[in-house]
């Protein structure tokens, strides 16, 4: 009985679990990437214990892939040796961890998944409890197959209405974060529901849950329904229903998207949210479309439609990074990659791209980047004297077309 978070932990432990309880549970999937796995291996080794269950571990190389420096190459080589030695089968370098885990069927409703990456909160879009942890926590799960959690209280976001032309789920989540604040939901599960969410495609739901951490949330969650079931069954993955039962929410927020306009978050805080029109006309030096927030086929489709037959100025760095190989293949099949390259955008291999600030579009002092990322912290994309603005793929594409921050409704 309870919220989606309470339902997941109750099913997991076969007893009624309520918010506030601290529980020790079996971890279904333990994920980490090239940046966080080296310290996790160190932690495992330091416990003196062997790997508990290699089949519940997934390692993804995505942050700096392929390696862009001797240092990254060296760390990745250490991880590869661990993978070979331990016989870990679930190792991939074909896109961003959060996208690949969903595509490969590791994210199943009711599962408890920890990831050495703060955006592990994304998995709740499929009714799984995913939460980000540090490398030592990954090492703990490597050694024991378990970890502890405090079952979180839940903030419920009740969303109604339909998106107007040019307005997308990214605009909604930015609006929500602007209202709740960067620490407004600290430790809380952020559950999204209501008619707008029910009508939303799975890819767009992932955009919402992905950014729960940007208001401090422990995870983002959406109850399972036909959309979840169809996605999983079409891929031959198991489906279980996870829905709230008489939930007791700590707080309920209501949003109506009927009147929502395109939003952006200006440097250096994700809760610095304003309507795009406030900054319209501001020149930019880089546009980046990609990431675990907005690098999916739905996102590339928006950009492809807007770029078709157009030429982008080579004075602007326009970078597109599909979230995974699957997305890349689909974009190729649909002709989007040709559209992007004809327009003059640079299409890089799937992965985190410039969001980690180490390759594929690092910004210079004085550069202003408009991106579909989830964070705009100082120094995140390179120089600490640069500026990062986050927005929807449509706003990013519109901005790439003009070289100035542009409301997508003006060019669609």
């Amino acid at each position, binding site marked *: 009985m309870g919220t989606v978070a309470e339902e997941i932990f109750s099913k997991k432990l076969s007893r009624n679990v309520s918010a506030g309880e601290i529980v*020790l549970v079996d971890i279904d999937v333990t994920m980490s990437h090239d940046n966080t796995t080296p310290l996790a291996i160190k932690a495992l080794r330091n416990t003196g214990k062997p790997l508990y269950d290699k089949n519940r571990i997934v390692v993804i190389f995505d942050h700096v892939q392929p390696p862009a420096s001797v240092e990254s190459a060296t760390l990745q080589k250490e991880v590869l040796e661990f993978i070979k030695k331990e016989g870990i089968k679930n190792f991939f370098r074909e896109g961003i961890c959060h996208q690949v885990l969903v595509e490969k069927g590791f994210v199943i409703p009711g599962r408890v998944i920890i990831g050495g990456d703060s955006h592990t909160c994304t998995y709740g879009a499929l009714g799984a409890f995913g939460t980000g942890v*540090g490398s030592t*926590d990954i*090492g703990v799960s490597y*050694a024991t197959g378990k970890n502890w959690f405090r079952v979180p209280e839940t903030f419920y976001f009740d969303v109604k209405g339909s998106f107007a032309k040019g307005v997308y789920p990214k605009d909604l989540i930015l609006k929500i974060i602007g209202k709740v604040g*960067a620490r407004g939901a600290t430790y809380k599960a952020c559950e999204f529901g209501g008619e707008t969410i029910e009508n939303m495609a799975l890819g767009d739901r992932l955009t919402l849950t992905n950014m729960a951490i940007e208001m401090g949330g422990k995870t983002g969650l959406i109850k399972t329904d036909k959309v979840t079931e169809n996605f999983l069954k079409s891929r031959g993955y198991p489906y279980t229903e996870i829905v709230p039962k008489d939930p007791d929410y700590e707080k309920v927020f209501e949003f109506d998207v009927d009147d929502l306009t395109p939003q952006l978050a200006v440097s250096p805080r994700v809760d610095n949210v304003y309507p795009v029109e406030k900054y319209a006309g501001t020149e930019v030096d880089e546009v980046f479309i990609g990431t675990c927030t907005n690098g999916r086929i739905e996102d590339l489709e928006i950009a492809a439609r807007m770029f078709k037959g157009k030429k982008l100025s080579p004075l602007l760095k326009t970078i597109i990074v599909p979230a995974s190989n699957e997305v890349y293949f689909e974009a190729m099949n649909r002709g989007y990659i040709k559209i992007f390259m004809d327009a003059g955008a640079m299409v890089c291999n799937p992965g985190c791209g410039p969001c980690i*600030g180490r390759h594929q579009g690092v910004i210079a002092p004085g550069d202003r980047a408009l991106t579909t990322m989830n964070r705009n*912290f*100082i120094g*995140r994309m390179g120089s600490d004297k640069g500026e990062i603005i986050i927005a929807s793929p449509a706003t990013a594409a519109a901005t790439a077309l003009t070289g100035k921050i542009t409301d997508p409704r003006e060019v669609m």
Partner: protein
Amino acid sequence: MGKIFRFDDDVNTDEIIPGRYNVTTDPKALAEHCFFEVRPDFSKTVKTGDFIVAGENFGCGSSREHAPIAIKASGVKAVIAKSFARIFYRNCINIGLPIMISDELYDLVQDEEEIEVNLKEGRIKILKTGKEVRSQGFPEFILKIIDAGGIVNFLKNHDIGELEDGI
């Protein structure tokens, strides 16, 4: 006794250690770039036994454990904040970087002021004024991890199930 490095609200992990310096697992090398951009003098002036005092939501953002490792390897004895972001909080407990939660301290002290801290008893004394504040306590099972010096040390001598005895 140690000096305070005072920070505001919402200090994120990109500020503690920018992503492009996370190319090593060596604590000393990470410490060299701790607060590299927001407080470039930090790594040069911090001394063993100093403290970080901050406002709300310290350590928000990425899950990178490089951040608390960099702080710990800088010699910081404890981070005392009004509140912590949750992944950072877990990471500190896990790696044995002492943290204290105090609503009061932040507003009572200034940068570079000196304090004396008794971690075990959760007491913080402001030397200039002689005023003493108390920090919040931890749940019993977290104390077990803290007392062991971090979860890795705990697991060296215990089964993880033993944590449950304190839950």
